């Protein structure tokens, strides 16, 4: 599931554990390795241990057990200021008593870089985030988005190879956030830096990252590329956490030729792809993405199992239609259909037949 120690990895967590109180583990046996230049996002609900991992990497928390390696060398005992890792904080942490230029100059001064070099680097960093004219301002005179850019410039100005970002866009409004997501990814790829990005926003994680590590309960639930994560979640937590998801509860009847026959709780039987279920009789949670549900049987195989459903609600959302159905005794089954010219709008109360390709329907562990 997760990578184990890899000598080529730029950043590696090896069997890392963390406990604050000596009674519970906040991070449980974390193994993770990432190559140079990767944009990796740690995604998870609050309290899942993702920020703790980031802080251990930055050096502000010490691992209770295990080893963290940077460029092949263990860094557990190296203090934060010697790690050379750039970091962008949630509230930006721009020094309020310094101007923007002084803020950017700070990491260069402590590295004893000459004045002319410093000025050139500051200018380049500010230009990089399109804030060239703001060097003389104080952080309080800047808007949230501008502060964000400065924080980014400050983390990059001393040319670190690894940059950590702790929910850097959390305080921005939606439009600005989307814009900054785009800018940060572009910048990271242009500069070829390695980024570890922490967020609880799954859209952000999916759009920005090369790989996403989904955290829950102190463990990485799944580490994969965004599309894999979305389309082939390894377990029901990931399926639920990433994107919209329909679930149906049932019991495995039979597993044969890579297909599982699942008997739903109301007695109906459907096909599903077994993911982490092993034997008949096991309880399972069936997961189907709303956009993969077919209404009618035209596009399904001749022997595909279908379910009867009743339309409960039709919601017009512009580009898509969202229809809520009553299926197998539950009334929160959502389907999404594209608003194309030939698409029929379902009416509430209408009886329809729904089905899906077996590979879109994943039989996961019952929570």
């Amino acid at each position, binding site marked *: 599931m997760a990578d184990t120690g890899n000598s080529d990895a730029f950043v590696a967590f090896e069997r890392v554990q963390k406990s604050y109180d000596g009674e519970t583990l906040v991070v449980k046996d974390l193994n993770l390795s990432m190559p140079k230049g990767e944009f990796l996002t740690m995604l998870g609900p609050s309290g899942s241990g993702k920020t703790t991992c980031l802080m251990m990497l*930055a*050096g*502000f928390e010490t691992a209770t057990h295990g080893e963290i390696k940077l460029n092949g060398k263990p860094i557990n005992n190296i*203090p*934060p*200021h*010697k*790690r*050379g*890792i*750039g*970091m962008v*904080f*949630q*509230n930006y*942490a721009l*020094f*309020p*008593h310094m101007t923007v230029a002084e803020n950017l100059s*700070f*990491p260069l001064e*402590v*590295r004893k870089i000459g004045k002319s070099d410093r000025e050139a680097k500051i200018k380049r960093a500010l230009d990089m985030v399109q804030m060239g004219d703001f060097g003389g301002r104080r952080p309080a005179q800047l808007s949230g988005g501008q502060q964000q850019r400065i924080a980014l410039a*400050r*983390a990059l100005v*001393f040319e670190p190879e690894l940059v*950590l970002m702790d929910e850097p866009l959390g305080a921005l409004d939606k439009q600005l956030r989307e814009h900054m997501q785009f800018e940060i990814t572009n910048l990271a790829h242009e500069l070829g830096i390695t980024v570890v990005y922490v967020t609880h926003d799954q859209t952000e994680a999916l759009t920005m990252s090369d790989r996403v590590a989904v955290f829950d309960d102190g463990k990485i639930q799944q580490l994969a590329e965004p599309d894999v994560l979305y389309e082939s979640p390894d377990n029901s937590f990931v399926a639920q956490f990433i994107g919209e998801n329909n679930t149906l509860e049932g019991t495995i009847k039979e597993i044969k030729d890579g297909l599982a026959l699942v008997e739903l709780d109301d007695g109906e039987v459907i096909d599903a792809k077994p993911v982490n279920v092993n034997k008949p009789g096991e309880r399972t949670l069936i997961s189907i993405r709303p956009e993969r549900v077919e209404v009618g049987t035209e596009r399904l195989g001749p022997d595909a199992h279908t379910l009867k459903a009743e339309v409960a609600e039709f919601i017009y959302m512009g580009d898509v239609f969202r229809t809520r159905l009553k299926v197998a005794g539950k009334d929160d089954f959502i389907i999404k259909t594209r608003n194309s010219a030939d698409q029929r709008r379902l009416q509430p109360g209408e009886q329809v037949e729904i089905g899906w390709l077996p590979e879109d329907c994943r039989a996961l562990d019952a929570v």
Partner: protein
Amino acid sequence: MSKLKSTGQQTADAPTPEDAFHEAATYEDREKGKAPGEKSAGPVLAADGTPLKRSLRRALRVQKMRALMLIAPLLIFVLVTFIAPIADMLFRSVENQIVSNTLPNTVEKLEGWDASQEGAPGEEVFESLYSDLFLASEAKEHTRLGTRLNYEQTGLSSLFRSTGRDVDDIGEDQIDALEDFNEVWEEEGFWFNLMSGGQGAEKDTALVEEQRRRLAALTGDDYDAEIGFAPGAAISDLLPRTARAYTAFALFTVVDDEDVVAEEEPWEAVKVALIRELRAGVDLSGYDGPGAAELRATQDMVADLKPIEFKPAFLASDEDWGTNDIWTTIQMYSPPFTSGYFLNAVDMEKTPQGPEARPETQQIYLMLFERTLFMSLVITGSCILLGYPVAWLLANLPMRTANLLMILVLLPFWTSLLVRTSAWKVMLQQQGVINDVMVWLGIVDDASRLVMINNQFGTIVAMTHILLPFMILPMYSVMQTIPPSYVRAARSLGATNWTSFWRVYFPQSVPGIGAGSILVFILSIGYYITPEIVGGTTGTFISNRIAYHISSSLNWGLAAALGSILLVVVLVLYWAYDKIVGIDNVKLG
């Protein structure tokens, strides 16, 4: 913030229904086809045609009044118990009406006297002094004046007291002769008749009013009571001094002694005035009022008497009256306002040649001011040094530990100031805990125990301890608002622990240091109890001297002047602090 606000349309802090109404109204005006330029010419109008500013003010007035009512109790309290006493103190430091109130005639006569002459002024000044001092000694006010003038020149207090006793005896022989000549001069009824001019005579009420004011100024009491006497216009015209003296006597008899004028024999001063005026050759030929015959007869008699001479009489009572010093002092302190207290407070004195520095042996206050400022600075400095780490710990420890520490910080607040200070006495004295421990450890020899109390060291130690919470609390509340992410950011940017503290954390904690320093410095500059108990002679503050003048020497004027200087020093320092550091940089959290 203010920038953001100025771009908004509303001047009020929050939109209210009235705002919406005004907005709608101005909008309507615009809709009614006004030319675009027309609007900018005049003030913006509300719907009813009044200027918008005025309607807004009116709308906000109720709120303002309500707010004012809420703070009214405190405002009144502060005015009565704080502002008024300070104003009174400032007034007292220059007020000097006691001299002109007690010796009005003397002061007037002295105006023309040239103090650079040798010796005392002439007879006529002494004559005024006699009448002023007689009245003052009757009212027992002469000792107060003596005490007041004694601040400026030692010996004046006893001079006034002894002369006040002797003043009754001046002109004794002549009065005896007068009374021997005719018994009527001992009769209350005759005097009353003579002075009031008899029934239905024209009265000189102006004189009564004048004497009422004079006595009121002298004693500070009210002399408005009805006394059943007014001098006759004729006699007042003829014998003005006698009439004045008798009127004063009459007022005093009724108001202070609560007797009837017609039943009391007049003062010696009245008789002395009569003898003087008769001897001066007043023309009695036109007078036909009561006692005219007796007056004429007496005038002939007194002409043969020895003249009453005041100057020799005063010199006989105390020869100091003949010295130049005394009269110079009296003349210098005659005006109702004086800079004397302030000059005194900065170790100077008034001389006829202008302010001069006192002799070195008498200088004390400048040194005390300097010491007070110096020690307050040292105390503030040691509070910063000791308090900063504690405040840092408070702000950065986990909640539970921080609370415990906070209780320890606040503990001194729950102990009486006196107890804490006395505890330091126990700790620091030569047979005290610290000395004992050091002797026991062999650090100090038993014979040379350290002197740590009743000097500056003791005061600084005890006051640092007492004022420490005032430093820690503002620093703590400022430090609490500094998120840990700043230091983390600094360290992630490559700064060492020290650099991130010094360049990132410390500058942000400066407002707390500023607030604490102002608090501690201003508190310590006026501190009294602790230096009084542990300060000895070298560790006392200016406040101890102020307290001494308030409660022991009773020189309130000087105490007020010292207090005013202290107040000004604090204000100047505050102003300087604002200029250098900026008061905006002071935060209490």
